[in-house]
Structure formats: structure tokens, C-alpha cells
């Protein structure tokens, strides 16, 4: 094939006795954007790590410019112009943006750092990304999306011929995604080949030239994107029809009581004067741009963040809720958006993770390990968590299975009100569907759900009402036919609703 810059031929990979890739072919041509799709655990990230030199293949060859090449490490790959941007950030948090971008390849003149040149290079690449961060800012102080942009800046500031991107837009806003896409197109126009992993079907449809789908570690299909509809791709990924992505919505009865009342809550620096109510059997969506204060509002609500004003009351509980224990005792559970940073102990096995929130139920002083074991077996069956080994560490699970474990952990306290924050971020279609079914079943059984999501179709498909936030304020609450994309966006951007721009 002409113009193939980087290819994997019949790549197989095993970790111990577990084989995760079975003779997969994948080729990136000059100037193309080749999307790699598949459910969590399909082997996408592993394949990309092999092509990026981070892991050796167990069998098969990596070809660079048509010649079989052994990449001993990522340094080998980078010398050949193959750069990978990871899902997890690889930035030094205490160093500045500029220091990070030039980390490991500092410009030196006469034995001293040539800061002027590096400053110039940093400004140039940040300007290309339309990313208004200060080169002198410490990375630790940046927002998640800014960090992602710096990560991308770091990659493209090298002499890159192949760029491997693993879910680069998972934490980006719509506008930032657009900027990234413009940059990717500029790079491909210069002949750079791009491998692009994403779970967002519409995004892949919009940006990629070709799509390769993997399922359970096997190659399924490689086709020009234009020949496939998003539904086709989803079908190829899952291997069956997904007829109804969203379960049918049963409206709560008219007399459904209010179970949670939030009154004039203020979280310093984030949220001003937020009030809303939640009824039994209701799914209440929270929409808004990244940084609108949705996560902070929920964290303040359950007592994980300091608040300066306001009151939270759960029905049937005399005391207003101020601390996380009170929230849990009142049947309110919060499922964080930061699965690895705040949700799960990734270095630990499944069991202590499952029972951590509800450990008091496993013994007042001594922990009943047999009961924990039974709970794990039950949770694995109920939430269909795929793990090779009951004693496996959480880090060995795929993202989707980690998310299912986090849900199982949260459900251990048998909450009546579930607050879920970006529950399907970075998760494949099949697992998403499973989570939607779970939430629908939860409210059907008399529970109530607050769901924060940056994916509008998700809120439109699931929620009975949608609260929209902008700049720390609630700008509107939509229900019925008003829950549609334009209306939400107008409220989220300040074109409409309370506190709208004049």
C-alpha cells in the first residue's frame, strides 16, 4: 500500500495468560485521520501503545515506512516521528507549561538553557491551539481541558509524522474540540498521519477518513468513514443491533413527593445561589459547559466541599445535610466524575474498593471478609463486571468495568438518591447502554437520579427535567418538549434564561 507511514501487521499481545489482541492489522497513511473504534477492553489502547513503542507486541511486526522496525521504547518511536498522546496525562504538575513542552529536549546554548527560544516555540504552538494559557503557569494549576491542550501542544511541537491520540476530546468542551479538529486538519494537510481513538461516534464521523473497528481484541472492519453511518459503527463495535439506546422514560406520577430540596446553595468560587428540587422516580439532568459549576454544586450538596450559604434537605430526615456522612445516612450517594482520582483505589483489589463506602455494614469494628467476598461475587454478577480474577487489582480492569465497579460501590449503601457525574465519560456504547438501563431501573424502583453530563443526547434521552447552569448559576430548568439541543445550548451559553447576557 502506498504512503503507509506506520502499520501493525498481525499484531498479537498477551499479558500473562490473557490474550488481548489477536493478529490485528492497522495502517496509518500519510495525511489521513484513521479512527480506531471499539468497546472498552477491545484492545484499542493496547494496539496504540504497541505502535507508539510503549509496549512490545507478543507476535506480529510494526512497520515504519514499509520496513519492519523494532521499537524498543517510546523514545525510539519519537525519534522516528511517532508521538502518542495518552488518555492519562504525562505532565509534570509542579513545572511550568513551557518546561513541560520542552521536557527532555530542552534547547541548550553554550551549556545553558536557551529560554528565549523555548519561550518563542511555546508561544507559537499555544497560539496554534488558540490556547490562552501562560507559558509560565504551573501545570498543576490548570483545568483538565487546559492540561489536555498542553499535552497536545507538547506532542505537536515535535517533528511529528504520526500522531496517536487516545480520546483527546474526552475532557474538552465543544469549542475546544473544534480548535483541536482544525489543528488536526492542518497537520494532516502537511502530511502527518493521525490515529484517533474516540468513543464519540459523531466526532469520528466528522473528522476521520477511515475507521477500523476492533471487537474483543480482533479486527472487525476497516472502511472509509463516508461509507458508514454512526449506527453502522455502533453495530460493528457491539456485534449486535442496539435498537433503543435509551430505555423508555416513565414519568414520575403527579403526586410523586419531593425527596430532595436544595435552597440557595453557594459554593465559594464556583456556585451562587442554586436552588432546585428532586422528586421521587425522577431523573434530573444537569447541563452546562465545563466549568459551569455543576460538579462543584453536587460536591457541595453532599458535603464534600465547603459552602457559604444555603440548605439541603432530604425528605424524612430532620436535620439539614451538611457533611458527607449525613448525606450517606440520608440515602444520598455521589458518584464522582474522577474515577481514578477520587472514585477508586486503583492499586488495590476489587473487594476493598467495593466495600469502602459501606464498610460499616460489614462489621462495626472487625471487617467480615467472607461477607465482603459474597458481596463482590454478587456485584460482579449484577453489574456484569468483567474481571479475570477476583483478586485482580482495579488498575487491570478496563475503564468501563471500573465504572461498573464504582457504581456497584456506590450502590453498596443502598441509596435512595443517586447523583452521578459524567457516568459514561470515556466508556463504550455497550456499557453506556447498560448504565442507562441501570439508571432507568433505579428510578422505576422508587429511586431518584441527578445526572450531570456533557453529552447532550444523553440528557435528552434520559432526563425528565434538565437544569442548565452557566458560570455558577442556574439559568433555567427545562422539561418536556423544551429538552432539546438548541434550548439547552442557549441557556448554557447565556443567550437565554435567568442571568442571561443582556
Amino acid at each position, binding site marked *: 500500500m502506498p504512503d503507509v507511514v506506520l502499520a501493525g501487521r498481525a499484531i498479537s499481545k498477551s499479558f500473562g495468560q490473557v490474550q488481548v489482541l489477536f493478529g490485528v492489522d492497522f495502517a496509518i497513511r500519510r495525511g489521513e485521520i484513521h479512527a480506531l473504534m471499539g468497546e472498552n477492553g*477491545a484492545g484499542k489502547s493496547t494496539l496504540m501503545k504497541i505502535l507508539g513503542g510503549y509496549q512490545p507486541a507478543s507476535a506480529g511486526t510494526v512497520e515504519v515506512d514499509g520496513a519492519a522496525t523494532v521499537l524498543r521504547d517510546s523514545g525510539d518511536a519519537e525519534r522516528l516521528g511517532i508521538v502518542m498522546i495518552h488518555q492519562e496525562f504525562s505532565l509534570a504538575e509542579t513545572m511550568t507549561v513551557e518546561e513541560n513542552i520542552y521536557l527532555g529536549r530542552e534547547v541548550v546554548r553554550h551549556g545553558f538553557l536557551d529560554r528565549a527560544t523555548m519561550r518563542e516555540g511555546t508561544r507559537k504552538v499555544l497560539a496554534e491551539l488558540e490556547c490562552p494559557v501562560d507559558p509560565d503557569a504551573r501545570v498543576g494549576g490548570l483545568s483538565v481541558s487546559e492540561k489536555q491542550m498542553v499535552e497536545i501542544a507538547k506532542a505537536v511541537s515535535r517533528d511529528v509524522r504520526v500522531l496517536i491520540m487516545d480520546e483527546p476530546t474526552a475532557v474538552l468542551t465543544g469549542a475546544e474540540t473544534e480548535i483541536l479538529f482544525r489543528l488536526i486538519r492542518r497537520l494532516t494537510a502537511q502530511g502527518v498521519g493521525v490515529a484517533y481513538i474516540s468513543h464519540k461516534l459523531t466526532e469520528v464521523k466528522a473528522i476521520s477518513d477511515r475507521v477500523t473497528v476492533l471487537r474483543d481484541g480482533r479486527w472487525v472492519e476497516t472502511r472509509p468513514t463516508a461509507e458508514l453511518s454512526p449506527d453502522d459503527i455502533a453495530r460493528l463495535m457491539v456485534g449486535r443491533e442496539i435498537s433503543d439506546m435509551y430505555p423508555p422514560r416513565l414519568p414520575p406520577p403527579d403526586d410523586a413527593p419531593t425527596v430532595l430540596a436544595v435552597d440557595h446553595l453557594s459554593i465559594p468560587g464556583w456556585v451562587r445561589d442554586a436552588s432546585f428540587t428532586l422528586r421521587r422516580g425522577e431523573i434530573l439532568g444537569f447541563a452546562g459547559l465545563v466549568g459551569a459549576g455543576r460538579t462543584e454544586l453536587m460536591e457541595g450538596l453532599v458535603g464534600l466541599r465547603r459552602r457559604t450559604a444555603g440548605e439541603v434537605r432530604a425528605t424524612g430526615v430532620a436535620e439539614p445535610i451538611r457533611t458527607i456522612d449525613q448525606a450517606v445516612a440520608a440515602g444520598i450517594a*455521589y458518584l464522582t466524575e474522577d474515577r481514578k482520582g477520587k472514585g477508586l483505589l486503583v492499586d488495590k483489589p476489587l473487594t476493598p474498593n467495593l466495600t469502602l463506602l459501606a464498610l460499616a455494614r460489614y462489621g462495626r469494628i472487625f471487617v467480615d471478609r467472607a461477607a465482603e467476598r459474597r458481596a463482590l461475587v454478587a456485584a460482579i454478577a449484577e453489574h456484569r463486571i468483567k474481571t479475570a480474577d477476583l483478586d485482580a487489582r482495579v488498575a487491570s480492569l478496563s475503564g468501563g468495568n471500573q465504572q461498573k465497579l464504582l457504581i456497584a460501590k456506590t450502590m453498596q449503601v443502598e441509596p435512595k438518591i443517586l447523583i452521578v457525574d459524567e457516568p459514561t465519560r470515556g466508556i463504550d456504547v455497550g456499557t453506556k447502554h447498560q448504565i442507562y438501563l441501570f439508571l432507568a431501573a433505579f428510578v422505576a424502583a422508587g429511586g431518584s437520579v441527578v445526572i450531570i453530563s456533557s453529552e447532550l443526547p444523553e440528557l435528552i434521552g434520559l432526563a425528565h427535567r434538565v437544569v442548565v447552569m452557566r458560570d455558577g448559576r442556574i439559568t433555567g430548568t427545562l422539561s418536556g418538549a423544551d429538552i432539546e439541543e438548541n434550548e439547552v445550548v442557549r441557556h448554557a451559553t447565556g443567550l437565554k434564561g435567568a442571568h442571561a447576557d443582556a
Partner: protein
Amino acid sequence: MPDPSGPDAPRPSRTRRFELKTWGPFIALGILVILGTLVNPVFLTPNNLVNVLTRTAFTGIIAIGATFVITTGGIDLSVGSLAAFIAGVMIMVMNALQPAGMAPLSVVAIGMVAALALGVGAGLINGLLVTKGRIEPFIVTLGTMGIFRSLVTYLANGGTLSLNMGTRGFYRPVYYGDLFGVTYPILVYALVATVGAVVLYRTRYGRYVTATGSNEEVARYSAIKVDRIKLAAYALQGACVALAVVLYVPRLGSASATTGLLWELEAIAAVIIGGTILKGGAGRIWGTVAGAIMLALIDNILNLTGAISVYLNAAIQGCIIIIAVLVQRDAKGRR
């Protein structure tokens, strides 16, 4: 990852793979015992072993507390100075009570209670400065280390505080006495280690200690009162120091500015050799016990052989610490 077992449910772990990380300290201890026996037949005599273990008990007990503090992700550098300070105060309390005509049993009992109260109190101060004061544990305990050391020097007026003869005679058996040939310090050490292991591995508190050190944010989001868990760990450390002092005072019957010097480093070394991770989240009580005994055995073996100078003891201990950490890192998987 795709499920390798196909449609089957996940199995409980297959035969556990042998892990050098877990067994390393015990294997090393075994090698050391064999080495000691080869060097000098005296090594394996009950008398020698009891002597060594009795002297291990002080830092050994302190190291059990240190295992908890380190597992929460903290560190306590003040334990050696605190031991000296508690010893000084305890001796002064007992000396003040004796002329009042109190029975020796009551004098010693009150001294012990005072020691424990002081230990727990000092631990709480460290813990509060770490949790409420939001200061790095290293800095807090570096500060209190200096404070306690200076206080005991001040109390002793630069010299030595000695226990009055009457009380000393009564108190002596706590260190020198034994039950079926096993001295009380060894018995107390075994008890403290067992309780420590049960608490760390079997109780809710132990699980929270590990979770806090593994990822404090995850612990906080799991409704764990992280500050209280840490505070309790420092208090526990203080109690362990006090217990060690209660056993130590009858040995010499005195305290001075050099009492307990470098105990903090010995305790931390025992913890690290034992396989507890310094950044927290994984504690091993029995590993700590093996580590403490190893450090004492090296000293003993060097004394028994003439081949290597006893002055090189610290160098050999240093090498062991570094090797222990290298072995653990290797076993953890290369990156």
C-alpha cells in the same frame, strides 16, 4: 480486557504466585539466622536470642506504631526524642511520689499511666498539626523532634535523670523478669505486634488507614473521616512510644539527652525493610517485626564474629535498607 475465561464467571485467584516482595523480609531474616549460626555457635543459644530480642523490643514496638503512621501516608520523626522526654518525665513523676510514702506498686503504676498519657498527648499534638494545621508530617515531626529532645535536656539540666533506688528495685523485673525464660519486653512486643496486625488487617480502622494512604481523595469521597484516621494513627504511635519507654526505664533507671537517640531512624528502617511502602497505602506489620529483628541481629552477629568491625554496623544496616527497597521495586514490576 476481554474476559479470558470466556463465559465462565471469574475464578478466585489461581494458586498465588510467589512474591518476593511479600516474603523477602522473612527470607532475609532466615538467611541472617543461618549466617549467625555458622559464624558462632553461641548465636543460636536461647540466652543470646532472648537478649537480642529483648533489646529489639523498644524500637520494635515503636516500629509497629510507625507502620500505621507510614501506611496513612505520614511519617513521625519525633519518636526517639519523645521516648527520651517521656522517660525523663516518668522518672521525675516516680521520684516525686516515692518520698510521699506511696507504695512502690502505686508509684510505678502512676508513672506508667503518666507515660502513656504523655505519649498519646504528644501523638495527638503531632496529629492535630498534620490534620488541622495542614502541615507536612515531615515538617511537623521534625519540629517536635527538636522540641522533645530539648525539653528532656532542660529537665535533666544537661545531665541525667535517675530513678530513686527504692523504686528502681521494684520496677527492675519489668525489664529483667521473664515467663518461662521469655522476658516481659518480648512478651509485650509479641502482644503489640499481634494486636497491630489484627487492627491493620482485620478491622474497619485498619482498612481506612490503608485507604487513606493509598489515595486520600478516594477515602474522603468514600465518607471516611480522613483527619480522624490520621490523628488516631499519630496517637497510636505516641502510645507505642510510651509503652516502649515503660519497658526501657527499668533497664537503666535513667534518662538523659542521649536516650532514644536515632530510634526514629531505626523504627522507620524496620518498617521499610519489612515491605511497607514509604508513600503509604500498604502496611505490613509482620514485615516490620522481621525488619526490626534483622537490624538487631546484624549488630549481634557482628559482635559475635571478629571478622568485621562492629563500627561498620550502621554501614551494613544502611546497605540492607537500600537492598530491601531495590528488591521491592523490582518485584513491583519494571516501568
